[in-house]
């Protein structure tokens, strides 16, 4: 099977769906490499590099460069989605949701329910999230928790190239608005990815490591850290099960609960913050539905409740690291050890 990066897998997913379905369009800033310049078209494929080559194959009617006007992009995509197209709108950094939030959460998310089931909004909003590139406070946030909290939106967070392709094709074919979060630091990670189209259903978690002592739930870049920790702790005789939910809405509660019923211990690793985030959300769900199975406290490993700092030393401290995951696992393995935090 060919090896592809997440960036290539996403590009392929869009390309295959655009070939299959003429109603699929791509719209966003610089997605066609920047219109109106004096040089080449399709030079870059947007700031994320994901859409490169699509303009050359599908032309300007379907790969649409826009002005830097996020509200208009998202609103246009939502309006087009309710009237016969399947837009894939690109929002360069999820931080820019601040500019266009209304069109997503008051408009696109609400149509189906608010109009009594008479509207469909088959819209995909692809966006980049996460810290690690020294991009500072307005280009580094992990905001999927906000969108997970909004009824009417589906929320996808792929961690590898295989999932990225299957989940994106699923998102494009889905009849509801889907928020598709891509971690900016893992675009070049490779995996085996089939050339043909395939889908991965939403709400089905992936168990990336099987184990019996403790369950770790993690997303995107954090999932890879968790896998690494699981491998290391395995050498010390601690058997760690790692779960990648892949979608936060819908959330595969069943897989998480089954795992916790088996291990009795849960650590959630999330690059978002400690308040009202995915870690808190999953912890609450497990505490309510699997309380009797728990052998120790549920541990949340998250970023601190601060904006993302610029300076590399501070940003490295900000991002949850393997040491914190190990410490959390040790804490749930020995809950009687006082003072551990």
């Amino acid at each position, binding site marked *: 099977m060919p090896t592809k990066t997440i960036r290539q897998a996403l590009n392929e997913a869009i390309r295959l769906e655009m070939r299959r379905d003429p109603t699929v369009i791509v719209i966003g*800033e*610089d997605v066609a*490499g*920047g*219109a*109106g*310049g*004096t*040089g*080449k*078209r399709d*030079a*870059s494929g947007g*700031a994320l590099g994901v859409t490169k080559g699509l303009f050359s194959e599908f032309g300007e009617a379907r790969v649409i*460069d*826009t*002005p*830097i*006007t996020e*509200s*208009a992009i998202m609103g246009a995509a939502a309006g087009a989605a309710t009237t016969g197209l399947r837009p894939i709108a690109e929002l360069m950094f999820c*931080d*820019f949701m*601040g*500019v266009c939030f209304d069109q997503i959460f008051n408009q696109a998310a609400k149509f189906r329910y608010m109009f009594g089931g008479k509207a469909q909004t088959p819209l995909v909003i692809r966006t980049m999230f996460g810290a690690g*590139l*020294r*991009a*500072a*406070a*307005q*280009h580094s946030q992990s905001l999927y928790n906000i969108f997970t909290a909004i009824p009417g939106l589906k929320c996808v967070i792929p961690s590898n190239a295989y999932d990225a392709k299957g989940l994106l094709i699923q998102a494009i074919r889905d009849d509801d608005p889907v928020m598709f979060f891509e971690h900016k630091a893992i675009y070049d990670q490779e995996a085996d990815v089939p050339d043909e189209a395939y889908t991965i259903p939403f709400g089905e978690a992936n168990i990336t490591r099987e184990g019996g002592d403790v369950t770790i739930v993690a997303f995107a870049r954090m999932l890879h850290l968790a896998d690494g920790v699981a491998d290391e702790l395995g050498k010390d005789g601690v058997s760690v099960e790692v779960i990648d939910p892949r979608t936060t809405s819908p959330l595969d509660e069943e897989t998480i609960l089954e795992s916790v019923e088996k291990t009795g211990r849960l650590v959630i690793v999330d690059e978002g*913050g*400690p*308040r009202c985030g995915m870690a808190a959300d999953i912890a609450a769900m497990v505490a309510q539905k699997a309380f009797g199975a728990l052998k120790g406290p549920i541990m949340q490993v998250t970023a*601190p*409740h*601060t*904006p993302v*700092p*610029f*300076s*590399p*030393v*501070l940003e490295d*401290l*900000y991002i949850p690291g393997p040491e914190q995951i190990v410490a959390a696992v040790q804490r749930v393995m020995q809950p009687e050890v006082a003072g551990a935090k």
Partner: protein
Amino acid sequence: MSLDQETLLDAYRRMRTIREFEERIDTEFKAGEIPGFVHLYAGQEAVATGVCIHLRTEDYIGSTHRGHGHCIAKGCDVKGMMLEIFGRKGGLCGGKGGSMHIADLKQGMLGANAIVGGSPPLAIGAALSAKTRGTDNVAISFSGDGASNQGTTFESMNMAVVLKLPCVFVFENNGYGEMTGVDYAVGSKDIAGRAAGFGLPSVKIDGADFFAVEAAAAEAIERARSGGGPSAIEAVVTRFYGHFIGDPQNYRAPDEVERLRAERDCLKNFRERVTSDGSLSNAQMEEIDGQVGTLIEESVNEAKAAEFPDETELLTDVYVSY
């Protein structure tokens, strides 16, 4: 009104400092010394300088992701800026902000801004504050051709007119919003004309001509200061570098930047003008060149030698830490 020699030397120093600063940042970034995303202002120096030369410390400016030039022109400490961009202790934001978020409120610099269209509403807020507190201070909203299309910008221009705020919207049209050409992205191809549609006295000028900028800015700032309300200036400039350092710029013709550097260099234009009319001598400007070179060299050396912020800084300046 012609500028006196002291003001001209001041203007030259600010422009020269911006150019030298940006070219050195480019070198240091490419050598791996500077982290993050950096957007250079070189080529646009006459705009920040031509506007800020008419401002007081107590006046305000709101800036963009391409904000180093605005900072320098408004009087931010160059060494503090360099420390910030290197992410070190002692930087203007303690190393927490970086290139895209340099701010110095004591100098009236309300921050570079990493959100396109983020600054215009803040600038009219500063203007509202200046007016409500009974001062005659003004606020400048610097933004690019890209931000000129944002709803936040339209809303701000309208509110500035409605509330008759002491504000000047300065649109630096450098030909590209990120990678997309201005003639594509601005439907009317006329940013000043669009501002006029909102009821703002508006002019379109050559931003490579310091004297055109300062004349337009003097009129607009005086109007704002004297209670005449907001204005807009569209300054046509060029970007000597890419959208960010590392941008391969394939969307620009291969010879475009080289040609613009030859034909549309505001520093060259300034020098030709002031030497041909005898208002400044080459020797005076060369003396400044030397001083600026020393300042930038010292700034970089000090930034490289400086410590990184203390780890405890991660959890300061927030209400709560969980």
